[in-house]
C-alpha cells in the first residue's frame, strides 16, 4: 500500500459521492415518471377539459354526477364492494382462526388450499364460477336433475354471481390479513378465560373477536378496495346489464372514445379508493390506540 494511494483517499471518508449514490435510482424512477406519474397527471388534467372548448371546465364532472346511468354504476360499485367485504371477512375468519391456532398436520394443507387459488389467476376462477352458476351450469343442472327446481335459477349474469366470484378471488387476502391479526392475540388469553369458566362461544365473542377488530376492519377495507377496482370478474360474471365503475371506464375508452369522461370516471374511482384508504388508516390507528393503552 503506497503512501500516495493513502493520500489520494483522504478527500472522502468512504462511500461514493452524492450523485453517484443516487445514480442507480435513475432507471426505475424514469420509468415510473414516464409511465405512471406523467400519465396520471395528464389524466387528471384531461378530466377538466372538453374537446370542443378551451380552458378548464367542470362540465364532465357535472355530467357524471347528474347522469342516472353513471350514478347507478357508482351505487352498484359501492353495494357490490360492501357485500364482498362482508362475505370475505365472514368466510375468512374460521380459516384464519384455524391457521392461527392449529398445530395439526392438516394446517399446511389448509394453508396451501387457502392460498393456492391465487396462482390460478382471475380468469380461471371466474370461468369456473361461470360454468358452475350459469343457466346450463353445474348447480342448475344438478338441481333440475334432482327435481328441486323446474326452471334454472338466475345465479350468474347478475349481482349474485359477481359477489360470489369476487369473494372467491379476494378470500385469500382476507385470510392472510385476519391471520396476522389472530396471531397477535395470545392463545393463553383464551385458555385462561376458559379456565375461569367461560364457554367457547363467549370466549370468541368477548375475547377473540374484540381483540381482532383491527384485523376485521383491515380485511373489510382491503376487500372493499379490491372489489371496487376489479374489472375482469364483473365483466365476465356480471353480464351486459351489470355495469360498475371499472367496466364503465373500459367502455368509455374503447367504445365511446370519450377520454375526458373516462378520465372523470377514473378519477372518481381513484378518489373513492383514497377516501376508503384514509378512513382505513385513521380507523386502524384509533383501534390500535384503544387496544394497546
Amino acid at each position, binding site marked *: *500500500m503506497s*503512501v500516495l*494511494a*493513502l493520500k489520494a*483517499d483522504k478527500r*472522502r*471518508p*468512504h462511500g461514493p459521492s452524492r450523485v453517484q449514490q443516487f445514480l442507480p435510482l435513475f432507471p426505475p424512477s424514469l420509468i415510473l415518471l414516464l409511465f405512471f406519474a406523467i400519465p396520471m397527471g395528464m389524466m387528471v388534467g384531461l378530466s377538466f377539459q372538453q374537446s370542443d372548448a378551451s380552458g378548464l371546465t367542470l362540465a364532465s364532472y357535472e355530467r357524471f354526477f347528474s347522469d342516472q346511468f353513471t350514478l347507478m354504476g357508482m351505487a352498484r360499485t359501492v353495494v357490490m364492494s360492501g357485500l364482498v367485504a362482508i362475505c370475505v371477512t365472514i368466510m375468512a375468519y374460521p380459516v384464519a382462526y384455524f391457521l392461527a391456532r392449529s398445530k395439526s398436520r392438516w394446517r399446511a394443507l389448509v394453508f396451501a388450499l387457502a392460498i393456492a387459488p391465487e396462482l390460478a389467476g382471475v380468469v380461471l376462477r371466474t370461468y369456473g364460477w361461470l360454468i358452475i352458476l350459469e343457466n346450463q351450469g353445474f348447480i342448475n343442472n344438478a338441481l333440475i336433475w334432482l327435481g328441486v327446481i323446474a326452471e334454472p335459477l338466475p345465479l350468474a349474469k347478475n349481482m349474485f354471481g359477481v359477489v360470489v366470484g369476487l369473494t372467491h378471488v379476494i378470500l385469500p387476502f382476507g385470510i392472510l390479513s385476519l391471520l396476522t391479526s389472530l396471531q397477535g392475540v395470545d392463545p393463553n388469553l383464551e385458555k385462561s378465560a376458559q379456565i375461569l369458566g367461560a364457554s367457547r362461544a363467549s370466549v370468541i365473542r368477548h375475547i377473540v373477536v374484540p381483540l381482532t377488530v383491527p384485523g376485521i376492519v383491515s380485511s373489510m377495507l382491503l376487500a372493499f378496495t379490491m372489489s371496487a377496482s376489479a374489472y375482469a370478474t364483473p365483466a365476465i360474471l356480471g353480464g351486459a346489464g351489470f355495469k360498475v365503475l371499472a367496466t364503465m371506464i373500459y367502455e368509455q375508452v374503447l367504445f365511446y372514445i370519450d377520454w375526458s369522461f373516462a378520465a372523470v370516471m377514473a378519477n372518481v374511482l381513484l378518489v373513492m379508493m383514497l377516501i376508503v384508504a384514509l378512513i382505513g388508516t385513521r380507523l386502524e390507528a384509533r383501534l390500535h390506540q384503544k387496544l394497546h393503552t
Partner: protein
Amino acid sequence: MINSDIELIGLSKNYGANKIVRDIDLDIPQGEFVSILGPSGCGKTTTLNMIAGFTAPTSGQIRVRGHDQAGVPPERRKIGLVFQNYALFPHMTVGENVAFGLKMQRKGRAEIDNQVEKSLRSVHLDHLKDRYPKELSGGQQQRTALARAIAPKPSLLLLDEPLSNLDLKLREAMRIELKEVQQELGITFVYVTHDQEEAMAMSDRVVVMHEGIIAQVGSPRAESYQSASYPAAAK
C-alpha cells in the same frame, strides 16, 4: 524508532453533544496482547471501529506502523476483525468463509487452499471445512470467525467481546486457545471485553476504559508489571 504497531494519539469521538471517546492516547507494540476492559457503553466498540476504519474519529490520529490511517477505507487497512456475533457468511461453508479474505487479495488457488488448511488446523476445525455456519455449535462458529480473520495474515487482530455468547466452560477453554493462536502467530491482539477475569487471564496488558477515557493501564501480573518497559499511556 517505530516498533509500535498501533498508536492512538488524542483520539476522540463525539456523537452530537455526546463525547463517547475522549482524547485517548495509547501505544501498542508489535505482538502484544492488549485487553480493553470496561463496562458496557464506555466506548470500547467505538474505539475499535475507529481503528478498523468503520467510524471516522472526530479528532486525533490513528497510526498503523507509522502511517496515519485517516481516509484509509477499512478494506485497505489489513486489520483482522472478530465480531461478537461472529458475522459468518451464511451462504458459504466454513472453508469458503476462511478463504474469503485470500480470495479478495486475488491469491492463487493453491495458496488459498494451503492457507485455509493451516488456519483451520490452528483452530482445530479442519474436519468441519464443508459445513455451513448454521450447522455449527457456538464454539465452532467462534473458531471459524477466528480462522477467517487470521487467514489473510493481518498483523493486527481486533476482537470485540468474542467470547460473550459462549457458556462459561467453553469460554474458559477458548481463552487458552485464543492465547495459543496469538502466540503461535505472533500478531498483535486488541481484545475488548467487559469481563475482568478474562482480561487478566489472557493479556500482556490491560487498558481500563471508563466513560470514554483510559482510567488505568497495567499488567495483569505483578512481576511482569514491574518489568514492563512500556510507559503507561493514560493521561
